[in-house]
């Protein structure tokens, strides 16, 4: 049984006005977590260093002091343990929101996530729901040492039973984290760590959809309308796509429509298809390797649905079929505005 309702936003943190101008991304997630903790006492946070330290990125800063050690829990150093116990807690009616410290450290929990968390609803014929959220700072661009810059979303999107989402702006981060917590299905919540310090306006009263009404978990957003080329992105690359669209418009008047997927599983196919039917051209951008990646799924789907509208093959811009490189080379690896524009030029050349 799935509740379907739009509930008002949780009580806004008392020290903040309800509309906040220039709120950093990390703070917006913090505010969303705070609202979720305040509105449902079954919500609890678990992870490494999320208590007194507030997480290595300070996303959970102040939450243990406010909600106590029972609800904001510093766990032993064991990712499989974190996700595995979250499953048990969820079976007892709790709504665990767990943090994996970095993308590259999720793999000790891979079995628990893909084989247990994602499948128990199916295996019990719907008798057990597991509303677990797994928050993961992901992606590169911060000059880190290895295992701290990866984009493993395709590995999880390939797993049925798991939702995989990534916000691209502080407002979406604020709303999406609350909709993820309210989701009866497990959600892998990928936070673009390179954008944690970017600021945006956040309406703390924005409605939070529960269950099937959770708009941000199912609906892509056209974040910049355009007519010539559709650029599909999510998480950290939405910003890159928007910058490319602006440059293209300024330089030669090319009109790029940017679609922010928000969710990579499921994909909001109708929004993407409507855009590509209009523009006839499509470029997909993500940091993860393109080989067997999310872009491959989008390209296949767009080709199937928009074949007669397409003026050019769908192109992908993303990481290479190689492990994430050393920090000094990451800007050669990551999709840049230039590489997006190059792909845009190539689809326009057809």
């Amino acid at each position, binding site marked *: 049984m799935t509740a379907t309702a739009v509930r008002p936003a949780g009580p806004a943190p008392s020290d903040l006005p309800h509309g906040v101008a220039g709120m950093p991304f990390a703070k917006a997630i913090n505010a969303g977590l705070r609202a979720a903790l305040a509105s449902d006492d079954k919500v609890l946070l678990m992870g*490494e*260093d999320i*208590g*007194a*330290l*507030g997480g*290595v990125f300070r996303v959970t800063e102040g939450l243990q002091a406010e909600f106590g050690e029972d609800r904001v829990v*510093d*766990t*032993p*150093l*064991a990712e*499989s*343990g974190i996700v595995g116990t979250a499953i048990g807690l969820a079976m007892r009616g709790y709504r665990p929101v767990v943090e994996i410290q970095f993308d*590259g*450290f999720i*793999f*000790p929990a891979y079995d628990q996530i893909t084989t247990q968390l994602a499948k128990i609803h199916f295996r019990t014929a719907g008798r057990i729901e597991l509303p677990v959220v797994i928050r993961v700072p992901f992606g590169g661009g911060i*000059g*880190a*040492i*290895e*295992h701290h810059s990866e984009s493993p979303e395709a590995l999880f999107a390939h797993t049925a039973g798991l939702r995989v989402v990534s916000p691209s702006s502080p407002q979406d981060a604020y709303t999406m984290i609350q909709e993820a917590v309210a989701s009866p299905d497990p959600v892998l919540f990928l936070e673009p760590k390179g954008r944690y310090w970017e600021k945006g306006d956040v309406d703390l009263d924005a409605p939070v959809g529960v269950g099937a009404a959770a708009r941000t978990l199912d609906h892509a957003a056209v974040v910049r309308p355009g007519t010539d080329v559709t650029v599909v992105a999510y998480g950290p690359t939405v910003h890159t796509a928007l910058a490319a669209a602006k440059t293209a418009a300024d330089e030669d008047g090319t009109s790029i429509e940017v679609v922010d997927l928000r969710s990579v599983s499921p994909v909001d196919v109708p929004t993407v298809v409507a855009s590509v039917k209009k523009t006839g051209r499509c470029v997909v951008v993500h940091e993860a390797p393109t*080989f067997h990646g999310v872009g491959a799924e989008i390209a296949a789907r767009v080709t199937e649905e928009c074949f007669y509208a397409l003026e050019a093959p769908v192109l992908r811009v993303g990481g*290479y*079929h*190689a*492990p994430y*490189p*050393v*920090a*000094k*080379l990451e800007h*050669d*690896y990551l999709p840049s505005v230039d*590489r997006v524009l*190059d792909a845009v030029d*190539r689809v326009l050349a057809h």
Partner: protein
Amino acid sequence: MIEHSDELVQLVGPDGEPVVSEANAPYRERAARYLLDGPEPDAAAERLRGLYRDMALVRRFDVEATSLQRQGELALFPPLLGQEAAQVGSGRALRSQDYVFPSYREHGVAWTRGMDLADVMPIFRGVEHGGWDPAAHNFHIYTLVIGSHALHATGYAMGVQRDGLVGTGDAARDMAVVAYFGDGATSQGDVSEALGFAAVNNAPVVFFCQNNQWAISVPTAKQSRVPLARRAWGFGMPGVRVDGNDVVASWAVADEALERARSGGGPTFVEAVTYRMGAHTTSDDPTRYRTSDEEESWGRRDPIARVRAYLEKYDAWDDAREAALLAEADELGEHVRTTVRAMDAPPASRLFEHVYATPQAQVAAERAAFEAYEAGEPVSSPFEGLLDSPATTGGNR
């Protein structure tokens, strides 16, 4: 039957006084070569000055690296400050044929293996993922994923066993394997699995756990309700607790464990009780989770000051020696500084190198596309040029 004890092995106390007890007698005997109140004080003083030098130089390296990070020359650095005795003591108990799997803070062990400490830096400068040849000093590259390498060490030891390099009695051949990790790592499933595999295989491996009291902001009490060494007992292997700020005791306990491994006596777990005197890494701010009282109380147990006090008590140290050591430390600092500053980013082609051991079509195609893009040449498909020449084997039949 293995006898288990929680007793902390200590041979030199924090004030530099020798510690003599019934319980530590076997270790005093084993470590006689370093004891100034032992049978051969002059030779012992010479050897102990060697350990003191190791620790002082390693600390100098650590301070230099931390300041290089502050100057923007390194992306990040994990200091070993405070753990010099545990690392140098255990490292100096190794033989050249032993093989080490470090975590990411074992700069002191690297030093004892004879590595140029500047070679530790490419990882932290962001120009290499490894940075040195593991075979050169039987010192594997750093592992950042907590606990994984405990299994690698165990498997490596199982290989050593199969190669017949255990229990031959030939000191130049018998070999031990060591995995270094922290208190936090003991919570990882991989570490428990490693203990299990090592025990049932009687593998020649030593698990050297530096309990530095913290896993970033999480105190050891949140990883375990019992001393970490006890974890080993349930697996059926000795688990020994040693004062990790006592270099002589650390040497003795490691020496015993290594000897057990090399002679075919199987694995040992060592818990070296120490303290991370600095931040977790240069990105960390310990004031958020621990008190300055705690830091000061451990500061009084500084492992280097302890050896210095011990040497001075026996008139085995003087100003001339101190001056010479400082000069040597300055030289090391200078060497590290200039070497690090000269470390350039690798060419972008490195993105695609060594992904596989054999040529691989996907990598080759993406590399070609990348190079064309960089050269400003048009690329329509990463497979351009390859499409007209299908693979000669396994193609159309």
